């Protein structure tokens, strides 16, 4: 899948020239780069990809990955092989709010399967899909480290724990009413227990 995305069919080198990160993002990237010894700036790649994803509507396009490579002075393939390894990086467009429901172990023991089905029905989409209005993408993920407050879902930086159908309604309705994008890098996380 990956090779096709980064292949000649979809990648447009001209488009890369249009990529612009905000001043704030570039400043943050410089700060991150300063954490490592001279010549080891590749270490910044994962934190920088998080910023890049937030700057690019929640996903990493081939052009954005190329741009990141130029920021860190590494080869585009070094960026792509990392972006495609880690589950938190989206290589396709996603909705404004990516709902990630934990499906593992204790979350399963406490009803995660039903929570997933409930969200699918509520939003009229299947796992992996995005609502037609571009508001929500539904994903299932492995253990989020919230087993004592299972079932759990993550939206951007926020953890929503001890889920019931009623809580899901309340949380998703709130996100829809606000209508804004949620990123892992958000400072204003709003966990609910």
């Amino acid at each position, binding site marked *: 899948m990956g090779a096709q995305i980064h292949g000649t069919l979809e990648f447009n080198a001209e488009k890369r020239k249009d990529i612009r990160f905000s001043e704030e993002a570039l400043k943050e990237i410089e700060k991150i780069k300063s954490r490592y010894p001279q010549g080891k700036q590749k270490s910044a790649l994962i934190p920088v990809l998080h910023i890049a994803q937030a700057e690019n509507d929640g996903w990493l396009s081939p052009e954005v990955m190329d741009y990141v490579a130029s920021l860190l002075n590494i080869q585009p393939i070094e960026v792509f*092989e990392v972006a495609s390894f880690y589950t*938190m990086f989206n290589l396709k467009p996603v909705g404004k709010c990516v709902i990630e429901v934990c499906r593992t*172990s204790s979350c399963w023991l406490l009803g995660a399967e039903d929570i997933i089905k409930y969200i699918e029905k509520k939003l009229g989409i299947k796992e992996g899909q995005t609502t037609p209005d571009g508001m929500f993408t539904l994903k299932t993920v492995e253990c989020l480290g919230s*087993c004592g407050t299972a079932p759990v879902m993550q939206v951007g930086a926020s953890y929503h724990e001890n889920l019931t159908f009623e809580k899901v309604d309340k949380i998703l309705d709130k996100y829809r009413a606000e209508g804004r994008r949620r990123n*892992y890098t958000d400072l204003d996380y709003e966990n609910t227990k």
Partner: protein
Amino acid sequence: MGRKLLLAHENVPGIDRLDVYRAHGGYASVEKALKSMKPEDVVEEVKKSGLRGRGGAGFPTGLKWSFLAKPEGVPRYLVCNADESEPGTFKDRYLMEKIPHSLIEGMIVSSYALGSNTSYIYIRGEYFYVSRILEKAIQEAYEAGWLGKNILGTDYSLDLYVQVGAGAYICGEETALIESLEGKRGNPRIKPPFPAVAGLWGCPTVVNNVETIAAVAPIINMGGEEYAKIGIGKSTGTKLISASGHINKPGVYEIELGLPVEEFIYSDQYCGGIRNGKKLKAVVAGGSSVPILPADLILKTAKGEPRLMTYESLFDGGFQSGTMLGSGGFIVMDEDTSIVKNLWNFTRFYHHESCGQCSPCREGTGWMEKILHKFLEGTANLSDIDLLWDIQSKIEGKTICPLGDAAAWPVASAIRHFKQEFEEIAKSKKFKDVSHYERLHKPAMA
């Protein structure tokens, strides 16, 4: 019983702030270590304490530290493993979120002991918000002079950074973590060389779990010998247990090692018994990777002795009848739980998380997931049980890192202790699924 060293102040309002943490004795170990101890004295105290790695492997921390190579002119690094991803484990998140300074304090003392002047906390990406809490606490520590140049007016300087991951269980394996910290895929390295010789950027490196590092502060404060008096035998000190599943009181509990398992499950001080008055069926005592045990074998050893929360007692009987303390991810299942489906759930996890370097793990986990799915569809045959056994036996011990073992052990133990459940499905060609949501949540709401 019940002494708390890490969570003593967990309910103090504002304990995440430096002033409150300090008012409750915080950073005392930094003062003691930097002003009155040599780095090797700190290592010696940790050795005496008997502290064992709290991430899962249980390797003696002092010994691990003593392996660190010290070539002239080469930097050494301490990296904290906050990649907590073992299903059933959430203690590190709790500790970092509640008392972030306890990790920072432990990082300073441990970095001093190891001669690291730049240390990193590698935290799983999903815990992004926790990384913010840590960063805020680190900022406070810099401003108060606990981090930075010439700490407490000594020659010792330390910079501490938080690095976020991006979703990969494998990065909890220390060499995969180092790869990830270097900006690469989380593929575990072939050892030797061990990180103690060639770790981060090829330099000598120690990787320790959050809880391990946090425990160094009380060890320095009270002395290694005093710490070693807590617990039983080679299981010294306290341990954070993440309790989850079908229990009345899930949560993080700090226990003195040696607590009877039965007391931990049924006492109101801890798990508070099984939810909705159901019977205990099985426990995964140390995170999804360790062997699952049926109720009788988790409460008592095969010899009939009460099972204790120690490395040794949980392992009593080996894998025939025992398990492991692991990360302390204590997952409890009641009588209505399908062991077969639970195993499918675990196996899907390992298949998803295999990094793909070693074929026994990459292919084997997928095969096992598919075969287990046949049981859920009611299409499995009796021979599939043997096939599962065969596959797991060909993964264990045949991979670069322990993820292969971690994927094999749950399969082996489920078949060993619950073979009947697999046989019933294979014979009847029927799998009766239950909705855990319906059966657990609906009665409570009615």
